[in-house]
């Protein structure tokens, strides 16, 4: 078990990896289409709500020391609830991973491999997952911690590299479509913080469980910074009325960067880094899916499952017929799916478990009397 323990910094990177990978595909686009020029303000607003929710999750998890949501659901409703919760979260991780993978691969096809079948672009990712799933959890996290700084640098570089091309008037009107769309219906943009789902599963892996508060808050704050950088780059660079339908908007943004006459088209290098990031994301979601499955089936070893989950992701990723179906699912269904599972269902389970615990605590002193 010591082999699977991670430090608080590694845990933060794990959570932020989930945030970041969505920004590489169409997340900034979805945010922009919802709240237009008010996206930055909206992001700060939903970011603050996400920080509060992360704090709530920390408070709710605090009473259960090193238990994750699966253990907590067992405590709440026995094996039946544990299996239901586990199944829902496995489905959540698999579906979001396959959707993200398919979306990214469609982007890769448009950018680099226009004549290639999507199947051939998906297969290398699945092969890498076969390898990484055989390795230990701590090595997976270490891999992510080596790749993560590169991604961080790439986004910051993208922002400052494009700084000269920004049109700051695109921030106006500041409230976009209006106050209601920005602050009331715009609250739906909280789906961007789906990485919070990792917080439910991290406690058993922590070397220092008392650092949970730091992990919850830091990861959401860093994620928010990322979103701001990415969204600002897209918002200030493109007229969202015209270019918001780009396949990979950050990739398109990268093509505007120029350094002298030698470095004129650097987007492929950015793509190289983002491929690593998407791979990291898939590693994390796969490991969590395997870990949940192990818990609900009481399996001792993870290696027999190493090939099953990547194949599942592969299969589901192939289900949508074309890119427009993926875009439709992404903007109309997944956002609610994420909000329902991560922010409603997860918190509800933790809340009920806390109530049960509180009740037990209040019953115990009476019994002793």
């Amino acid at each position, binding site marked *: 078990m010591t082999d699977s323990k991670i430090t608080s910094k590694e845990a933060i990177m794990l959570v932020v990896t989930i945030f970041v990978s969505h920004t590489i595909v169409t997340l900034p686009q979805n945010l922009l289409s919802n709240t237009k020029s008010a996206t930055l303000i909206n992001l700060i607003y939903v970011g603050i709500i996400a920080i509060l929710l992360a704090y709530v999750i920390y408070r709710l998890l605090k009473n259960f020391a090193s238990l994750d949501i699966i253990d907590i659901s067992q405590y709440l409703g026995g094996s039946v609830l544990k299996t239901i919760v586990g199944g829902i979260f496995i489905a959540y991780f698999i579906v979001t991973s396959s959707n993200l993978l398919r979306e990214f691969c469609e982007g890769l096809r448009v950018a680099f491999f226009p004549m290639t079948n999507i199947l051939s672009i998906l297969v*290398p990712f699945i092969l890498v997952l076969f390898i990484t799933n055989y390795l230990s959890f701590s090595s997976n996290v270490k891999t992510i911690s080596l790749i993560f700084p590169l991604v961080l640098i790439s986004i910051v570089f993208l922002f400052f590299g494009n700084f000269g091309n920004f049109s700051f008037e695109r921030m106006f009107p500041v409230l976009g479509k209006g106050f209601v769309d920005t602050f009331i219906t715009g609250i739906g943009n909280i789906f961007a913080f789906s990485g919070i789902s990792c917080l439910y599963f991290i406690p058993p892996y922590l070397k220092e469980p008392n650092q949970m508060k730091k992990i919850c808050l830091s990861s959401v704050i860093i994620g928010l910074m990322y979103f701001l950088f990415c969204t600002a780059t897209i918002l200030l660079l493109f007229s969202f009325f015209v270019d918001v339908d780009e396949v990979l908007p950050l990739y398109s943004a990268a093509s505007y960067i120029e350094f002298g006459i030698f470095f004129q088209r650097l987007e*492929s290098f950015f793509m190289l880094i983002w491929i690593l990031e998407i791979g990291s994301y898939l590693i994390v979601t796969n490991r969590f899916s395997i870990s949940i499955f192990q818990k609900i089936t009481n399996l001792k070893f993870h290696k027999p499952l190493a090939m099953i989950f990547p194949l599942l992701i592969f299969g589901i990723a192939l289900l949508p017929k074309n890119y427009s179906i993926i875009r439709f699912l992404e903007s109309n269904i997944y956002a609610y799916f994420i909000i329902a599972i991560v922010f409603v269902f997860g918190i509800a389970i933790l809340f009920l478990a806390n109530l049960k615990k509180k009740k037990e605590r209040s019953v115990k002193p009476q019994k002793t009397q």
Partner: protein
Amino acid sequence: MNFKQILTDLFTYTPQEEYNFELLRNSTNDTSLENEKLKKENQVKNIYTSLRVNLEYVKSKYNSMINSDIIVREFTLIARGKQYSAFLLYIDGMIDTDIMNRFIIEPLMLRSKSNLYGNDQNRIISEAVANNITVRKVKKFNLADYIMNCLMPQNTVGQYSEFSKIFNDVNSGNCALFIDTLNVAFDIEVKGFEKRSIEKPENEIVIKGAHEAFVENIRTNTSLVRRSVHNENLIIENIQIGAITKTSCALCYVKTLANSDLVSEVRYRLNNLEIDSMLSSGQLEQMIIDDNLISIPQTISTERPDKAASYLLDGRVVLLVNGAPYALVVPAVYTDFLSTPDDKNMKTSFSNFVKWIRILATFLSLLLPGLYVAIASFHQELLPTDLLYSILASRETVPFPVIFEILLLEISFELIREAGIRVPSPIGPTIGIVGALIIGQSAVSAGIVSPVLIIIVAITGIASFAVPDYSFSFHLRVYRFAFIFLGYCCGFLGIGLGLLAYIAVLCDTKSFGISLTSGISPLQKTVGHSYFLQPIWLREFRASYLDAKKEEKQEKISMKWKYPFLKKEDTK
């Protein structure tokens, strides 16, 4: 040849007799019988009191009738005036005959006055008289003790009652003395075989460091290490490996620094090797590392005693194998393969500069050809238009696809490198020049490869030479081909995913319980370890992942001469 003979040869047929040797495999019964026989022979046998029986046994064991270098010298030994039959067993060419004659045969055979005194064999130690009764404490004469203490003016002598121990040392160059009536034999060190003297390191050349390298003799190597460490806490344990060769291996560590669990683990692995022979440190390395499937080296191999000593003082364990001029250091981390002993001898800014260069060299050596293939096949937009035109123009006459072109050159380069190592040393550099200049130039002229590719392969080759560790450089060379294929198949997608898998495997690899990537995570500070060196006065701690018994290397203020006004307790 006369006419008749010619006619006979022409018209007569004589079947040609062919010599045909075939190695037939022994039947299963024969093999099992042989194994039984060997097992019986390997059973521990004690030395007999009868010299004749011992002599017969020794002769049969060493096959002295057919073994030309086994010498059995029979003679008569004189001890306290009495004569005993004895014989010496040794191997010709492995002993120093001068030492043998002057310090063994001469004192045992020649008559000296003290040795001739043969009065009472028993010696009275003390005597007391009480009530007219005399009580004497008498020490009985012991021939073995007498020979050991009085007749053997030799510094290293052992007494053993088992043949196996005696034979083991005779095989190492000692001589054995068997004496009639004694059920023990003397093991006398008279080693004197020819060995290579200490020379300059050939593969780990430094500018400012020591110029001594390990040799094949294990005792010389241990002395070199001990001279550098110069502390009584340096422990050099002897472990024999190999059922046939019984190769001596030295397990070296500093008792007060090295983690006990680490030392126990290394000892455990060494003691549990069931093999017939062990002839080099390279073989030992493969036998003790955690994972042999991946080619990433997991131990540090060095020919420099100062480097080995430096690692010992960090709390690591050094292994020496008799017959191998290389030491193995465990555990190893990734950054060790990019460090040289000279790094610590140079100013920090200089060493950090070359460390950057080595990172670049590693990157180029592993990825440059793959990146070139990926860019040429999928990502041409990365190149500026002028450069792209010139590359396309240079490739215009080349009839092959880029993958064929690069493999052709890479394999040629590997061939040149391999040939340069195998051919005699005066011709080696010539092969390199001929290969690189003439073949390269001709290939471009013939339109087989493009000039840009020559530059790419040359830079890659030079970069691989800049990687200090040979095994690590080799590892990069092998993986480079994988990245070439990935780059050709999927461009940056292949390179990126290959890199991800490579990093993941690297992070999972362990060397004696320590992750190979310890200390390289940019967001995780490892106390006492960083690839880039701090100024020497700031190198206060040993690497935390080693969990050494003593964490501090030096005091907080090591250059006390600079702060004479500070109190002693403030400097700690």
